[in-house]
Each structure stands twice: as C-alpha cells, then as structure tokens.
C-alpha cells in the first residue's frame, strides 16, 4: 500500500528566485520524489477510515475495537462477552457528556488474548492483520481499523493506546502503551510491563481521543443496540458516558458456525491477480496450479480449461504470460465451473435473527429469512433479511400518554411514520450513507403495497416496522474504506430483493389473518362504543324522559345479533403462526412461535430448537423479574417512540 507520489510532493518548497523564472528541471523534480508511508497517507485522509467528524470518530473507535473483540472470540470458539466503557476524559471539572470534546474509550473482552510480541504491531501499525490475506468471512478485513483509531487518538490528544492482555490463567498479563510512528508506520513502545489482572484471559484496549457524544441516529448507543440484534450470542455491557449501564443479554447460546477459509474462485478473479497467482504458485504444472490454488477446479476441469485455452497442461505456470495468459483467462470464463463452496460464510441464521429482533425491538410480528448462498464476482455471499412489525401491544405501554385525548390534527403524525432499515455486513451494523447502500435501495424497490403496507412512490414503506438486512460474504464490496454502504451489484440486489419479498409475503399473511379476526371484533367494539353516545344523545333529546339502560340493552342485543354473536370470539382467538416459518407473533396473551427465552443463562441445548410453536414461556411466574429488564432496553427505538405513543389502537 505504499504509493509513489508523483503529483503531490509532500513538502512544498518555498519558491526561490532562479534564472529560469518558472518550471523545474527533471532532476530537481526527481529529487522531490519520495515514499509516503501508509500512516502518513491516512493521517491526512482520515475521512477514508471514518474519522471525518468528532462524532463519527468516537463511534468508529468503539466500532473497530468491538469488531476486533468479537472476531477474536469467535475465531477462538469462545462465546463473546464484551464490555464497552465510554467516559469523558480531560482535566476536572469534567463537562457533561453532551458538551465534552475528549473521551476515553475502553473495550474489554474475555477472548483469547494476544501473544506479547504481536501486541504493539496489532495496535500501532496500519495494515497489520490476520484477515486480509485469506478468503474467509470476518468483520474486519484490512487490519487498519484499530490502529487507525489509536492513531487518531494520538493525533488529537497525544495519548498512547493502552493495552492489557492475557492469554490464559497460567500466562502473565502484559500491559503496553504504544504509539504509532507515522513516518515509518511502525509501533513505538512507551511502556511495557507485566501486571496483575483479575481476568484469566482477554484483552482490554483504552484509547483517548477527541470526539463528540450524541444520542440518536448513528450514535454509539444505536451501534451497540444493532450489534446486539445481529449478534444475539454476544453478551454486551455498555457504560455510557452519562453514567448509565446498559446490559444486552445473550439470548442465543450457540456460537455461529466457524467460517472456513477458501481459495479464490476462478470466476471472480481479475486478470492481474491471475498473473500474480501463476507467478507465485508452488505447482510446477499449469493444471496443478489451477486445481490446487483455486476452489472448485478439479483436475478434469483444469484439463478442460487448458484445452480451451490451447495450452499444455504441463506448461510451467511461470512461463505463461502475454497472449497465453489472456487466452487462459478467457478460457476460464468460458468453462463451466461449480459455484464456490459456501462453508466460508457463516450466516446469522433465521433463529438467531429472530431472537435478536425479538429481544431488542418491540413488535407484534417478527420473521427472518436466510437466502441460499449466491456468488458475485466469484465471491460467495449470503443475504439475510428480517422484519419486525407492530407496536407490541403484548407489552404494557406507558399508559399516561395513551390516555390523553387527541387534539385536532394530532393523530396524523403517527401515520407518517416510516419504516426503519437496519443494515449489516458480516454482522457489523452499517450506520452511515444509508441511501447509497444496495440494501436500502432494495428496500425502496420492493413493492410493499403488495404485502398490505402502504408506501409512497420512491419512499420507505410506512408503518411501525423495522427491516433488517444482512450481507455475509468473504469479501463485502463496500463503497469506501470506512465500510458504510454496500456496493450495488446486480447479484446482490437480486438476492436482497428475494429475501425482502419473502419477509413481505409472511408479513402479509400475518396482517391478513389479524385483519380478518379484527374486523368482526372492531365491528362489535365500535357499536358498543357508539351505543353509549347514541343512547345519551337520545336521552338528552327526549329531555331525560327515557330509560337509557333499556335503550342501551336493546341496541346491544341488536349489535350482537348482527355481528355474529359469540362466534366472533372464536374467530378472534388469534391465528397460530402456522404457515409462517421462522416467525414470532405477539398477541395480548403472549408471544407464539420461535420465542427465545429471555435473560436466562441456560446451556445451549435449552435454547428453543424446533420450529413448532411453543407454549408461551413468558407466562411462567418465576421468569417475570428477569423480563423486567426488557422494557428498558426495548424503549430505545427512539426516533419513532413519540409517534408510536400517539397511535390509536
């Protein structure tokens, strides 16, 4: 990643009066050429890494550290447990969090720890990492993130990154303070010692940096909440700068299937990469190179390719260049090769998505879809979509607000409420550049009206709805290094659309079923409601000379007769989620479907496995106290909260 600067000399020299009034000689210009270290480059271009504004910088810092912690735990086969602490830093008296400009971010995990000699370089050398050179699904990709966060902290506060790590009970705990030497892109160790640590295993990173803490959209709070939705197997604790502690309990007790590393698939390869692979291969024969360095190329297929290209199967790979290489490249594209293996991807899974959504979002209906793997540019990927719909009337809502009568024009706000889209790539929430993202575009392009949800032209569907989209891939095509939006490939768009449609279909089944039951119910209800008004009006009109009681009773009887009497109650007796795979329906009696057990630290096998509806476990009295945690967490669908309360139901 070292670039030769030909256009931008790093240090402009002051113009000196010379014999030649303008222009430099080639030799003079040549003197100015010099290497730029990657750290220098990113110091100047920190927006590329997501450090463009103080607010975003703080979020990116937390995000990079948490992503690393989760990746490490999962790779080591440990159920992740992460503590995030964001504090106001600087000289006392400390300003309130909303006013502060300097923060200390600490992330602790109970992961595998890091061996001593790697610590400095992992945290203080850009482009140092384990994930770049392999094709395997992980959150991080390049090995820039955490060291860039440290560099940003160093740049804005001058403070080093503090790392504490221990690899096991019998290993010593190492404490480091490191800085990055931006000229050389090498770590500079300021402090190095062995300390006592109460943890047996894990890593703790502390970075002090300039930033701004703000709640709402694209905030740390949202990032943590969304992370917890897509990673229900993670136990997250978040200490906010305002001194609050939020706990996001683990609701899914299985580690995701560890993704395998794969070799590149020939379809996705670019010409230059092919040349490089031919050059670097350990095989002596062309056919051997093809069949060992690529996935899904058997010796037979390799032979086929060589034949199509008109090359000898025993040709030396290193000697293939120029025209021959081009022929080979074309032959590869022309040969039918099996799609790449998909065990390199570990999707979240329908059940886990359901658990995540159910835990974090208040609703009446939840569903999740995991698409079969597909391929873009030779990279396998999986699209997952989820949907939470409704206001969650199973929950007791703030009654003080609901009882307030509506003034003129007030009810209209709730109708304007639009769905919220939450986007993920390899389980990492994407918070910025929503409209540039392929997922968002696919949500807009889906005709939600077909599924009983209203939608204006070119807008998000309207309604109390959260739409979840996740792309898992060995290589997620982002539009920029700061990983904010997924690039728009046809294959990806198609998969997202298919997943969303499936969610939509299930939603419409649910809505129709609920509608049917409600129509009768509502009919009786509105009559009952209005009977009182009509009877009172009649009484006043008659000057109080009638029996309201009798009139009310007669009208009520007529209402019963006309709306199907007792039978309605049976129809009403809620539809089971049959015909709705991977869905949860919440009724006033409790949730049905693949309902996760909340807040119970049970072993993996106790987690609900079957797709069959289970009895609503939440009814059990001894679990009630645990449930109390839920409303607090769930309340955080902040942008729509107010409108939600005004909804009539």
């Amino acid at each position, binding site marked *: 990643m070292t670039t030769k600067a030909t256009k931008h000399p790093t240090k402009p020299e002051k113009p000196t009066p010379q014999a030649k009034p303008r222009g430099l000689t080639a030799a003079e210009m040549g003197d100015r050429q010099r290497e730029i270290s990657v750290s220098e480059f990113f110091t100047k271009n920190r927006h590329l890494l997501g450090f463009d504004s103080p607010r975003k910088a703080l979020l990116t810092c937390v995000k990079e550290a948490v992503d690393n912690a989760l990746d490490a735990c999962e790779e080591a086969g440990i159920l992740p447990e992460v503590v995030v602490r964001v504090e106001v830093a600087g000289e006392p008296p400390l300003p309130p969090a909303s006013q502060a400009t300097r923060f200390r971010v600490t992330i602790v995990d109970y992961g595998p720890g890091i061996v001593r000699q790697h610590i400095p370089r992992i945290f203080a050398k850009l482009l140092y990492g384990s994930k770049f050179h392999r094709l395997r699904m992980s959150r991080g990709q390049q090995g820039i993130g955490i060291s860039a966060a440290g560099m940003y902290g160093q740049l804005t506060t001058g403070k080093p990154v503090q790392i504490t790590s221990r690899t096991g009970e019998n290993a010593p705990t190492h404490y480091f303070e490191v800085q990055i030497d931006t000229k050389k892109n090498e770590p500079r160790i300021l402090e190095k010692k062995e300390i006592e640590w109460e943890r047996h295993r894990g890593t703790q990173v502390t970075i002090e940096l300039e930033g701004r803490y703000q709640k709402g959209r694209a905030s740390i709070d949202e990032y943590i909440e969304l992370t917890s939705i897509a990673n229900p197997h993670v136990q997250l604790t978040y200490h906010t700068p305002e001194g609050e502690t939020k706990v996001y309990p683990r609701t899914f007790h299985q580690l995701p299937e560890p993704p395998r590393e794969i070799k590149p698939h020939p379809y996705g390869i670019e010409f230059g990469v092919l040349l490089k692979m031919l050059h670097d291969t350990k095989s002596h024969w062309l056919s051997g190179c093809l069949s060992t360095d690529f996935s899904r190329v058997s010796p037979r297929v390799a032979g086929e390719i060589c034949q199509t290209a008109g090359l000898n199967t025993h040709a030396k790979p290193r000697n293939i260049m120029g025209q021959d290489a081009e022929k080979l490249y074309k032959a590869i594209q022309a040969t039918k090769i099996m799609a790449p293996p998909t065990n390199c991807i570990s999707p979240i899974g329908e059940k886990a998505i359901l658990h995540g959504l159910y835990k974090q979002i208040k609703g009446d209906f939840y569903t999740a879809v995991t698409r079969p793997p597909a391929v873009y540019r030779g990279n396998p990927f999986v699209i997952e979509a989820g949907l939470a719909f409704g206001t969650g009337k199973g929950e007791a809502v703030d009654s003080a607000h609901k*009882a307030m009568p509506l003034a003129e024009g007030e009810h209209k706000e709730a109708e304007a409420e639009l769905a919220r889209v939450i986007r993920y790539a390899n389980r990492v929430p994407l918070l910025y550049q929503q409209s540039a993202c392929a997922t968002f575009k696919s949500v807009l392009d889906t005709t939600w009206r077909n599924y009983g949800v209203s939608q204006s032209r070119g807008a998000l569907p309207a309604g109390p709805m959260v739409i979840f989209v996740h792309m898992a891939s060995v290589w997620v095509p982002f539009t920029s290094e700061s990983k904010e939006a997924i690039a728009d490939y046809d294959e990806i768009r198609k998969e997202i659309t298919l997943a969303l449609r499936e969610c939509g279909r299930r939603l419409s089944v649910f809505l129709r079923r609920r509608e049917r039951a409600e129509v009768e119910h509502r009919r009786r209800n*509105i009559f009952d*409601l209005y009977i009182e008004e009509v009877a009172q*009006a*009649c009484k006043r*009109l008659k000057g109080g000379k009638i029996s309201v009681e009798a009139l009310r009773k007669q009208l009520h009887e007529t209402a019963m007769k006309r709306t199907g009497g007792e039978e309605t109650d049976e129809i009403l007796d809620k539809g089971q989620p049959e015909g709705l795979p991977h869905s949860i329906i919440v009724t006033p009696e409790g949730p049905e479907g693949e309902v996760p057990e909340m807040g119970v630290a049970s072993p993996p096998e106790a987690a609900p496995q079957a797709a069959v509806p289970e009895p609503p476990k939440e009814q059990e009295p001894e679990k009630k106290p645990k449930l109390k945690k839920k409303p607090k967490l769930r309340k955080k669908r902040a942008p729509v909260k107010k409108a939600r309360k005004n909804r009539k139901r």
Partner: protein
Amino acid sequence: MARIKTRKSGSVEKRLIGLADLVIQAAQRKRDPTIQIPVRSLSNVKFNEKRGIIEMGPNRQARSFFNVGMAKKFMQTLLVADALAELQRAELTTSLREIYYRTKHTIKGSHENTFDTQDESDPVIEDLEVALEALREELHVRAENAGTVVGPLVVVDDGDRVDCSRLGKGGYSVPSIVEPEDVQIKKCTADFVLLVEKGTQWNRLAEDRFWKKYNCVLLTGNGQPPRGVRRLARRLHDEKRLPVYVLVDNDPWGYYIYSVVKQGSINLAFESERMAIPDAKFVGLSSSDPEAYGLPRNVGIKLSDKDISRAKELLNYRWFQKKEWQGEIKRMLSIGLKFELDALANKDFQFLTKQYLPKKLKDRDWLD
C-alpha cells in the same frame, strides 16, 4: 351566542326530537335505526327550466347505525341533533365552529374523539338541514357576516333602523340571517342591485359613490356570496322588483358564482327556492371584455389545468346550455386566459366606475 327573538320554532325542535324517537323505536323492534338523508350531489339535482332554478332530486341515502362504515356518522348525527335541540330550547344562535366544539369529546372507554375536525361536523349539519327540511337559520346556526351592503336602502335590524346610504364607505354588514322576522326592508329607492364578487371592487365603487350616481344597492359577498347576501338580494328582487346584476372575475369560478346566485347551488339545492334569482344578469367580466375594452394580454393569467377542467364541467351543466353561455365559456378556453376584475386597474384606477360599468349598463351588455 346571540339571543334572538322567539320564533315559531316548535316544529324544528320536534323534528330533531323525532330522530331520537326513530332510534328508540328501531331499538325496541330490534331493527337497525336508519335516517334517510337526501343526496347532496350533482347526481341528485335537476334543473327546472321553467322556473330557472336548481331543485333537489328524490334520491335519498340511508344512514344506518349497524353498518361499520356509517356507525360513526350516525352517532355524530345524533350528537349534532342534540346540540341543535339545545339551541332551540335555549333560543340561541351559534356558529358551525361552536357546534363542532360543543359536540366534541372523547368517547367513553376509548381514545377516540367524537369529531376530529370541523370537516366532520359541518356536513352533518348540512345533512340535518336537508333531512329535516329545516333551513340553517331555523336551526339557529349562522355563518359569519361576510357580506356588505351600501346604497339607498333602509332596513330595520333587531329594531334598529339602519340607513345604508349613511354608512360612509364601510357599509352595513349583512347578517347571515335576513329573514323578514329579523330584518325588515323599510325603504328602498334604488333602481337595481349590483352584486360584486370581490371586496376590492366593492370598495372602489363605494368610495367613488357609484351607488349614488347610478342609484343602486351595492352588495358584495367576498367571494362565493354567503346565504345572507343571496337572501337579501333575492328579497330586494322580490319585494322591490329590482333587477340584479352580477359582477365577477372572468374565470370558471366567477361563472359558477353567478350561476349560484341565479339558479342556486348544487350542495344546497333545497334552498334555491328561497335564494335563487333566476332573473339575475351577468354584467362581467366577460371573456369578450378584454378585447372590447382594450385590456392587454399581459394582464391576463394563464388558465391552469384545474381551471380548464372546471370550465369543461360548467359546459356540461344544464343551466349553462344557452348558446351565449357556451360561446362565452368556449371563448375563454380558446383564449386560454382568465382575467381578474382587478386587472381593469391597468387602464385606470377608476376605469371600473367611470367607464366600464357605465358603458355596460348603458349598452345593456350582459348575459342572461
């Protein structure tokens, strides 16, 4: 709320109470309480060519309680009926908006309001007007005093003598109820009535004392004339045999205002009987006037799509079928412009008073 004189209103109150009886009887027989309401739309009006007025047709719409779509409306109808009966008993008059507030409350045991906006209660009042065949005045509901009159006219309003020739430039504000019991026309020496669409032109004419010079009663309704203004014009026409001339903008809405004065409105067709003035004449602005009076094209306004479609609707109305009227509207469409009365000021501030109207009246240049 203003206190008004006792009127023979017993029957209106009885009719309102009749609605309660209807509900009670239906309930006793386990039937669906249903109110028959005449339909107030173009489909249910017919133009009586002989009398030259729009009359209401026979179509009725049943509003029943045990129908999901109508239950709320039915409930609202009874609430409004109750409020109106209260007015009758207390002998008070009130406005549409006050009725809305009087009847608005949250339905017991829910978060639903009886009425969410005034748009829901206004049509209910109109429904009751037609269903009970009671005039709005008889229901003690008044509109704003949106009209003004000036001229050689003396009326007695609530016992006060008002000489409309001695009220300066401001004139007398026409109350919404001008029935003979409330307002008596004592004396009127005018030769005709001029009903102007806009207040601006009415002010111009009043300021220039046009009414004195041409001996007329000057009326305006500030746009679509309210009932009081129409009723006053009609009474001057009936009782004093005065011809009525209408001066409106040259656009589809101006034409329609004229037709409402002349034949009555579609929405309140049942009131044409009392309001319409079939002999009213249209003095301007005609689509031929810009050319005849040399108004430059640049003071016109391009017809919008809405204007054009409205004009085409007018062309289909039975009461616009006269040859001259078809020609008038089609001319406007072919020119593609509309002209406001205000545009006459382009020639001269007093062009309307000094030249336009005198010439029009002298030449008897109007449409029937």
